[in-house]
């Protein structure tokens, strides 16, 4: 079933009180795909991600995770669905009072009945995936930004989620680290069979890894294009999207 839809939004409107962030968002994320949420600064990319991981209830519209209506159920039901999610926050969002190892162990301690040695083994495994095994006993304040991101990724993998959300995974990383992170994401997708939703405006990384996507416009507050970043770059005629994908300045893009 290659075209099975894992996440779907139907006519979703996101708003903070009376202020509308984005409206008429409809999208389908296929199983095993890497789905990019693109757009200029302030267009609501991160807000859309927030809504998809259950931190912001849309004012209008429906959100399905698998066959389940995400917002229709109880809080407990949503928590269960959230266990299918792994989220990498923009700056890692590691809990600063715990070591890296404890950060990854916490979800396992809270939501499984595994014994401490088994948890330790899984923590080592997840850190091994991201190449951070040596930092298991360090505190988040003792490691660099790039390492914090990788540790955040290891924590996102803690409960073996089948849907991963990445908020700006390569922001603030040097090109080499960022390219390595891209390869890691591809490896994890292929290895775990996970579905990945990624918010980013790092074009080179998007062209490299994403195979589907949506483009949000900040001015009209609606999505203006659907498709993979590569496809949008080569075929999209919308001046906004064209400008974004080819790094043109606004006035050139609007000619």
């Amino acid at each position: 079933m290659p075209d099975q839809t894992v996440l779907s939004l139907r006519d979703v409107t996101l708003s903070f009180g009376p202020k509308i962030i984005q409206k008429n968002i409809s999208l389908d994320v296929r199983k095993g795909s890497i789905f990019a949420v693109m757009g200029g600064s302030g267009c609501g990319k991160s807000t859309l991600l927030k809504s998809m991981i259950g931190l912001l209830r849309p004012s209008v519209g429906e959100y399905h995770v698998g066959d389940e209506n995400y917002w229709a159920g109880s809080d407990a039901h949503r928590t269960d669905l959230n266990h299918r999610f792994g989220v990498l926050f923009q700056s890692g969002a590691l809990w600063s009072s715990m070591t890296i190892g404890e950060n990854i162990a916490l979800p396992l301690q809270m939501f499984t009945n595994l014994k401490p040695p088994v948890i330790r083994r899984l923590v080592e495994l997840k850190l091994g995936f991201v190449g951070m095994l040596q930092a298991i006993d360090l505190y988040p304040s003792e490691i660099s930004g790039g390492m914090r991101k990788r540790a955040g990724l290891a924590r996102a993998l803690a409960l073996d989620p089948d849907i991963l959300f990445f908020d700006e995974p390569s922001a603030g990383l040097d090109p080499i680290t960022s390219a390595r992170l891209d390869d890691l994401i591809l490896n994890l997708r292929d290895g775990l069979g996970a579905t990945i939703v990624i918010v980013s405006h790092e074009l080179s990384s998007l062209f490299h890894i994403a195979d589907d996507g949506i483009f949000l416009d900040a001015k009209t507050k609606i999505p203006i294009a659907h498709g993979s970043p590569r496809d949008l770059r080569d075929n999209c005629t919308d001046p906004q999207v064209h400008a974004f994908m080819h790094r043109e300045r606004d006035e050139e893009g609007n000619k």
Partner: protein
Amino acid sequence: MTDKTNTGPSSNAPENAPQWRLEGEQNATVMVLSGIWQARTGTIPVFPKDGLPKTPEGHLSFETSGIQAWDTGLIAFLWDLKRVAHDAGISLDMQTLPGPMRQLLELLPEAPDDPVHHKSPRPPLLEAVGRRSIASMTEVGVVSELAALTAKGAVQTILGRSRMRLSDLLANTSDAGPYALLIVGIVNFLIGAILAFVGAVELQKFAAGVYVASLVGIAMVREMAAVMTAIIMAGRTGGAYAARISTMQGNEEIDALNVFGIQPSTYLILPAVLSLIITMPFLYLYGCLIGMLGGFVVSISMLDITAAGYFHQTVTSFGIGQFIFGFVKSIVFGAFIGLTSCRIGLKAGRSAADVGIAATRAVVVGIVGVIAIDAIFAVIADVLGI
């Protein structure tokens, strides 16, 4: 045909349990895996460290068709195997693993680096005491230096060479002053009332009930109003300063000030300290009055003292010297709370946990320090005969 079979510990476990066994020749072994290999079940076996014979040039291939379901639990087992095989000099035939398993397994190192430990061993007792003593003496020096810098900032501000923003001072002052009136009032009222109760019990035995007014008056003016107000301000305002400045530290806001050449001591600490120095004496006076009111309410309702008698007894019980004594104390308390809490905020680390530690420490140091300073004042007053 099978001349060596090594079986996992769970070979007679229930159906679907993860099972493994080694089959085949000395240097062409096959690892046969079957069952459900999921981490959440908690049944993933550990591959024994001596599970493979030491045969250099040996090969190990995989037979995975018996696996019904798997997740990273299987990878954990394969990683064990990978490390043991590496130690035994046996090469794994990765091509016999399905693609996803191979990709994940290839991410994992064969021989893990030694973990970096951040914890240094606990120093011996004497050394720990010594370190603590040096650290606290240093801290006294640093706080004094900070006080000097802040005072210098104040002088420069008056001379117009350095800038403290007046709006910051006003914001800090209104937060430390008017907004604290309610809690300072409630606490001092209750303290006055409690003193009156305590005094009444003893004094009435000697038909000296009217001296309750003197007791409440002297106690409030000399000690209680200043100390209680300072304790409230240490908890309320000192904790807030420490938390605010340590959060700024975490956001690199202090670094930004330094780069612009804006002295944190003038820009941040001066308004904070000054606002406490300005408001504390007024809060002290207000606390005295409210405390006496508390004593008055109890005396009128419980003892046979007239309002005029209470008033007269209060006014004659203490002189202006006592007032000045309390007044000076409250100014010193204000400066102490402001300086220490800002210093603790500046010294704090950059994480969320550090903000909590800084706020706690500011409150503890503030309260203990206020009471210690009050004791010093009591000795000085005794010597001077105030």
